[in-house]
């Protein structure tokens, strides 16, 4: 009674985990939540990060800040370009995940995400020329202003699972900040796959940390964290939560980038495809001005 046909091969499915400090841990809490496609079909279980995962991610981001902010802008630009290369190589995988998440013309969206990374990579050694200046002053001084990274930035990524995510993360890190990102709660899977891209792109561990789970649960802890220097609320759709986060952020004077106002929410999706300008770059820069006596 031997079987002539071999049994059907079992699918090897990916475990979607968090990305903290260059590693892929499960949530400290052990929780997960079911992610479904736009049609309601089960896709995968994603980790549901707790406040302690957020705390660990902030610690990892802080640890990475010294090295990343001290790297040359040229080097940071190279690494962002490398991320774009790696993303390009996984085009099919991202297109499939975006299609599951209900993104229209997913191939074009992956192209746009790659282009966005390349665009920001180019800014790495140019932003200082735009945001900095040699100031004319009334005195015998050479007066120079130069932009410096703010520090650890907590980012709530928008609901656009790839292009939106790339559009908020790239401008934060290209200038030397490190970040903790809360991925889209509805469609977190492309974010975890992007973490795999980041992990293989020479990006030092801890520069980008990606959490998946409930925005409502995690965002207030990041907003209140005293070791976070800035907050990007791009993906906070609940105005009450945005206000609460902004209030918590005031305790240590975090820089806060507000989400799009409610009356513009309709064209929010279109915004990520539009030319982003330098607004997101300069939002997380501090200006250092040096007065240098001229002559010897």
């Amino acid at each position, binding site marked *: 009674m031997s079987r002539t046909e071999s049994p059907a091969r079992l699918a090897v499915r990916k475990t979607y985990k968090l990305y903290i400090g260059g590693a892929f841990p499960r949530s400290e809490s052990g929780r997960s939540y079911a992610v479904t496609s736009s049609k309601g079909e089960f896709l995968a279980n994603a980790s549901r990060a707790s406040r302690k995962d957020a705390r660990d991610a902030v610690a990892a981001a*802080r640890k990475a800040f010294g090295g990343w902010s001290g790297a040359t802008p040229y080097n940071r630009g190279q690494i962002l370009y490398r991320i774009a290369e790696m993303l390009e190589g996984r085009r099919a995988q991202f297109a499939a995940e975006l299609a599951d998440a209900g993104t229209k013309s997913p191939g074009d969206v992956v192209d746009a995400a790659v282009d966005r990374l390349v665009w920001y990579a180019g800014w790495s050694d140019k932003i200082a020329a735009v945001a900095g200046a040699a100031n004319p002053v009334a005195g015998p001084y050479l007066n120079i202003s130069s932009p410096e990274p703010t520090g650890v930035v907590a980012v709530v990524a928008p609901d656009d699972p790839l292009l939106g995510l790339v559009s908020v993360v790239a401008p934060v890190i290209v200038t030397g900040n490190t970040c903790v990102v809360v991925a889209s709660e509805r469609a977190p899977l492309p974010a975890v796959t992007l973490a795999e891209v980041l992990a293989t792109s020479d990006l030092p561990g801890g520069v980008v940390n990606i959490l998946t789970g409930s925005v409502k649960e995690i965002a207030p802890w990041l907003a209140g*964290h*005293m070791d976070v220097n800035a907050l990007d609320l791009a993906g906070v759709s609940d105005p009450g939560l945005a206000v609460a986060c902004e209030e918590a952020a005031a305790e240590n004077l975090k820089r806060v980038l507000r989400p799009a106002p409610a009356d513009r929410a309709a064209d929010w999706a279109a915004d990520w495809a539009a030319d982003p300008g330098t607004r997101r770059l300069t939002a997380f820069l501090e200006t250092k001005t040096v007065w240098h006596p001229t002559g010897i």
Partner: protein
Amino acid sequence: MTTSFADVASSNVALRTFLHGLPGVDRVGADQRAAMLGTRSIKTTAKAEAIDLAIRMVDLTTLEGADTPGKVRAMCAKAVHPDPADPAVPKVAAVCVYPDLVAQAVGALAGSGVKVASVATAFPSGRSSLDVKVADTRLAVEAGADEIDMVIDRGAFLSGDYVKVFEEITAIKEACGEAHLKVILETGELATYDNVRRASWLAMLAGGDFIKTSTGKVQPAATFPVTMVMLEAVRDFLAATGRAVGVKPAGGIRTTKDAIKMLVLVNEVAGDRWLAPDLFRLGASSVLNDLLMQRQKMATGRYAGPDYFTLD
């Protein structure tokens, strides 16, 4: 029931017979028990109490070649007011410095109740003659140190010359006078848990008031199993002689979680009598800021950042 160990150190043979007659330590079992005790979850009010107790047990230490009087004064200020913004934070147990800086620390801590400890005896290697070690100890005691942290001669211990180690500890104890004597075993260099147990007993028999794991200069430093073996030794020594000896793990304790695990270990192995700064100390500096950050987190409900605490 107490036992007299008067004759134990009468000769090297007698001492060797006694120390090697101690029961051996099951390494796998010790590792497992220490790891198991480290999984306890201490939360809310118990955690708040544990944090305050741990702060009261900290020996704030600076043992660098680059130490300056200014750094010692800054550390002393931190010892008295670990968090200047919150007067409810308790003082630490002691500051620990090199002998030549004891006078600075004594001056800065006068009347505060924080003790001054000094390392001595050719710290950290302990490689010098007994005369030099005694003179080093006297230097610290005369400068006003309340506690002396001596290192044992690991070379003599490992080559089996137990009497030499014993007599050295006795001589330093005598030089200490009123000062408490902590005996550093440098467990990272002792190779086995059996040696840790033997060295613990040797130090206690010779009159040490505390046994301390490490200098902090050698890795591994204060691991949980080693601390557990030492806690077992002080527990058994109390049962045998009626004298309670303290334990001080030093080096490698950096987080509140580690400090609380140590407290669990103390409570489970030695008993709650040791949950007090006069019988248990944490030799660490970096752990203090983490304890303060956790304390602030519990008070304010938001995660604290290291920018808001002094470095030294």
